[in-house]
C-alpha cells in the first residue's frame, strides 16, 4: 500500500507539484506506514527547532543583498571596470563577462538572476564587438553558475547547514573551510573559461580595446563601492567585531547603503518593497522545503535508510574511487533534474553517510557535490540555465544546447580535476591551518537523542569551533574530543575518541567508532555546544 502511494507521489512530483508538498506527502506516508506509526506532529517538532537556531540567518540576507546588487546598476559598473582592465586582451571582453558573471553569481546564489541581470547588458556589447551569436549566448548561459564556489555563495552556506544537521557522529564543518576549499576549483573554472575566451577572441579576430589608465580610474571611481565589498566583508570578519552569522547583516547594510543611499539606483519606496518581496519568495521556496525535509530526515535516520543504502552500495562499490565515479554520475542526473537548493536539502543527507563510509573528506565531498550541481544547471535536457537562456535570448532550446557545449566541456574538465586530484580542494584548507575532520560514525547506527540532535550542536551556528578534529601536524585531538574513523568494512579501530563500550567521548588519542557495516552501533558523538557561550567544553575526562 505504502509503495503504491509513494509511486503516486513520485508521479505527481514528475508532473511538477511543488517539492515541499511532495516531501510532506512522502513523510506522511512514511510516518503512517512505519512499523510503529509516528504522529505527524513530529514534523513540526523539527520545524519548531529552527525557530531557535541561527542556521537560516544567511539565507534571506545574502539573497536580499544579491537581489539588491542585481537590480541596481552594479552589473553595468562591474562590466565597465572589468572592460577597462581587461579589454586590451584578445577576447578580453569575454573574459570580462566570465569574471563579472562569477562575481555576481557568488552573491545571487546562481538563482538565474545573474543571466538575466548581466545577459541583457553583456550580450549586445559582445555582439557589437563581433563575437559570434552562439559564442556570446554560450558564454552568458555557461557562466550563470560560475561563482557558486566563491564567498558568499548561498549554496555553500546551505551545504554546511544540511551537512551539520545530517552528519551523525561527526564534527561540523565550517563555511569558511568550504569557501577556502572551493577557492582553487573556482579559480580553475574561471581560468578555463577565460583561456577559452581568449582563444576564441584570437580565432574570431576580435578587436581589442587599448588600455587607458584614465578609463580605468574613471571606471574604478564608479565601481569602487562594489570592488570594496569583499574587502569590507573580510575586514569585518578579521576584526572580530562581527561573527560569521552576523556577516550577512553587514553585507546587506553595506549593499543597501551603496545602492540605495549612495548610488540611488534603487528607490526606497518605488523599488525596495518589490525587491524585498521578490527576493523573499526565493527564500520562502527554500525554507518550506528545508522545514519539511527535517522531518523526513528524522524518519530516514530512525529507520536507518542511509545504512541500508550503504550496505547495498557496498556490494557493487568497494573503493573510494568507484564511489566518487558513481557519485558524479548520480549528481549529474540530480543536477539536471533539480534546483540546486532542493538538491542540497533532499539529496545531501543520503550522500553524507556514504561519503563518510568511503572516507571522503567533507570539504572534498562538498566541492565535488557543488561542481556537479553547477554542471547540472547547464546539462541537457532540463538544466535550468538552458531554459533561462532560452527564454531570455528567445532562441530554440537546441540552439542554446549547442552554444553551451564547449563551456560544458570545460566544466567537465574542472569536475574531473576536482574529483580525482584531492589536493585541488584540500591543499589550501590544510595550508590555512584547518584540522582534518576525521570523525565518522557508522551511518544510520546512531540513535538520535532528539529529532535532530545536531540542531543542538549548531546552536551557535557554523561558526562554532570545529570539534572532534585531529591536528595534521601534531596528531592531537582538538578541544571537545572527537570520534574515530575506520576504513569501510575493515572493522579495525582507528584513531579517534569514542569508547567502544560506553559510547562516551574520551580524551585525546582514544579509541574508535566501528567501521560501517561492522554491526556495532556507534552512538552520536557530537560534543554539546554551550548554549550561552557558543563554545565547546573541554574534553571530558
Amino acid at each position, binding site marked *: 500500500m505504502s509503495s503504491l502511494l509513494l509511486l503516486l507521489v513520485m508521479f505527481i512530483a514528475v508532473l511538477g507539484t511543488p517539492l515541499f508538498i511532495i516531501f510532506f506527502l512522502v513523510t506522511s506516508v512514511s510516518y503512517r506506514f512505519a512499523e510503529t506509526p509516528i504522529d505527524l506532529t513530529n514534523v513540526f517538532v523539527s520545524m519548531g527547532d529552527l*525557530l531557535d537556531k541561527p542556521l537560516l540567518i544567511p539565507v534571506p540576507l545574502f539573497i536580499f543583498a544579491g537581489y539588491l546588487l542585481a537590480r541596481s546598476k552594479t552589473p553595468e559598473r562591474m562590466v565597465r571596470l572589468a572592460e577597462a582592465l581587461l579589454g586590451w586582451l584578445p577576447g578580453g571582453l569575454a573574459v570580462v563577462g566570465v569574471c563579472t558573471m562569477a562575481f555576481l553569481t557568488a552573491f545571487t546564489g546562481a538563482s538565474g538572476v545573474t543571466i538575466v541581470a548581466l545577459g541583457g547588458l553583456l550580450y549586445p556589447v559582445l555582439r557589437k564587438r563581433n563575437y559570434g551569436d552562439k559564442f556570446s549566448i554560450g558564454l552568458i548561459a555557461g557562466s550563470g553558475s560560475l561563482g557558486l564556489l566563491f564567498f558568499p555563495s548561498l549554496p555553500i552556506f546551505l551545504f554546511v547547514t544540511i551537512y551539520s544537521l545530517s552528519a551523525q557522529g561527526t564534527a561540523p564543518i565550517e563555511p569558511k573551510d568550504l569557501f577556502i576549499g572551493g577557492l582553487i576549483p573556482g579559480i580553475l573554472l574561471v581560468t578555463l573559461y577565460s583561456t577559452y575566451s581568449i582563444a576564441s577572441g584570437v580565432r574570431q579576430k576580435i578587436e581589442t580595446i587599448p588600455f587607458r589608465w584614465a578609463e580605468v580610474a574613471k571606471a574604478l571611481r564608479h565601481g569602487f563601492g562594489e570592488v570594496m565589498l569583499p574587502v569590507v566583508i573580510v575586514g569585518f570578519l578579521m576584526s572580530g567585531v562581527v561573527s560569521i552569522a552576523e556577516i550577512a547583516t*553587514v553585507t546587506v547594510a553595506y549593499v543597501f547603503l551603496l545602492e540605495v543611499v549612495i548610488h540611488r539606483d534603487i528607490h526606497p519606496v518605488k523599488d525596495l518593497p518589490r525587491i524585498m518581496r521578490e527576493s523573499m519568495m526565493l527564500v520562502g521556496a527554500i525554507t518550506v522545503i*528545508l522545514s519539511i525535509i527535517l522531518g523526513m530526515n528524522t524518519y530516514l535516520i530512525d529507520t536507518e535508510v542511509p545504512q541500508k543504502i550503504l550496505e547495498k552500495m557496498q556490494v557493487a562499490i568497494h573503493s573510494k574511487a568507484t564511489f566518487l565515479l558513481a557519485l558524479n554520475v548520480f549528481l549529474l542526473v540530480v543536477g539536471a533534474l*533539480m534546483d540546486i537548493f532542493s538538491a542540497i536539502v533532499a539529496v545531501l543527507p543520503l550522500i553524507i553517510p556514504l561519503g563518510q563510509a568511503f572516507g571522503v573528506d567533507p570539504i572534498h565531498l562538498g566541492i565535488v557535490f557543488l561542481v556537479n550541481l553547477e554542471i547540472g544547471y547547464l546539462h541537457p535536457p532540463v538544466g535550468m540555465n538552458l531554459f533561462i537562456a532560452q527564454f531570455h535570448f528567445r532562441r530554440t532550446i537546441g540552439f542554446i544546447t549547442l552554444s553551451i557545449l564547449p563551456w560544458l566541456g570545460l566544466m567537465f574538465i574542472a569536475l574531473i580535476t576536482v574529483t580525482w586530484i584531492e589536493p585541488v580542494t584540500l591543499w589550501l584548507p590544510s595550508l590555512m591551518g584547518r584540522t582534518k575532520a576525521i570523525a565518522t560514525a557508522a551511518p544510520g547506527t546512531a540513535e538520535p537523542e532528539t529529532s535532530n540532535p545536531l540542531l543542538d550542536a549548531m546552536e551557535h551556528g557554523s561558526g562554532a569551533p570545529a570539534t572532534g578534529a585531529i591536528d595534521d601536524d601534531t596528531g592531537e585531538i582538538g578541544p571537545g574530543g572527537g570520534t574515530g574513523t575506520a576504513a569501510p568494512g575493515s572493522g579495525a579501530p582507528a584513531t579517534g575518541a569514542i569508547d567502544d563500550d560506553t559510547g562516551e567521548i574520551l580524551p585525546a588519542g582514544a579509541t574508535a567508532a566501528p567501521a560501517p557495516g561492522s554491526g556495532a552501533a556507534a552512538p552520536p558523538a557530537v560534543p554539546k555546544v554551550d548554549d550561552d557561550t557558543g563554545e565547546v567544553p573541554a574534553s571530558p575526562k
Partner: protein
Amino acid sequence: MPEETKPPAPGAAAPAAPDTPDAPPGTHAGHEPADEGIPPPPAGGPLRVLHFLYYVVLYRIETGILIALLALVVLLPLIEIVNRNSGLNLWDGMLATRLSYIFTFYTGLFGGVAATRQVRHISVDLVQPHLPPRVRHKLSGVLYLICVGAAGYLTYTAYRWVFWVITPEDRFFPSVDAWWGRDRAWKVGFIVALGWMTLHFAVAGVRRLLTEPPAGAVAPAAAGAAAAAPRAEGA
C-alpha cells in the same frame, strides 16, 4: 528599474503581472507563467468584494508582513552588533539574537506564502515544459488542487501540534512571564502561514481550471526563436 506592481483599486483595470525576469518557465514552478497577474474584478456582488479582499487587501497585508519581518532580520543583528561593540548594553543581547532567529524563520515561511501566491515554488521540470499550453494550464490546476489537500492537512497538523501537543505552560522564553514568553505565541504563526498557503493554492488551482491559458502561450521546450512563453496573462 521595472515599474512596481500594485494591486488595482476596485473597479480599476487590472494590470498585467510584473515582468519578473528571473522566473522564466522552467525555473521554479514556472511551467505556467510564474505570475498570471490579477484578473479583472467581477462586475458586482460578493465576488467583487472577495476579489478586492484577496487581490488587494490580502496582498498588501502579506507584503507588509514580509517587509516588516525582513527589516527586523536586518536591523536586530545590526543594532546588536553596535550594542555589543559599543559597550552600551542597551538591551538583552541574547534575547535580541533569539528574536532574530525567530523572525528569520518566519521571513522564510511568509516568503513561502508569497511564493505560493505567485506560483514560484521549486519543483521538478520534467514534463510540463513539453506539454501544449492548454494541457499544461489545466494540469497545473489539478496539481494545485492536490496541493490544497496536502497543505490543508499540513495546516491541520500544525494546529494539532500548537494546541494539542504544546501545553499553555510551555515557555519559549523561560525568563519572560508575559504572554509573549509562551511557546504557543511564537508557533501559532505556523498555522497562519500554512493556512494562507492553502488559500493561495486553492485560488491558483480553481483559477486555472476555470480559465484558458494566456493567448499565444507555447510549450517552453518547443518554443522557437520568437515564441518564448509570455510572462504574464493580462487583464
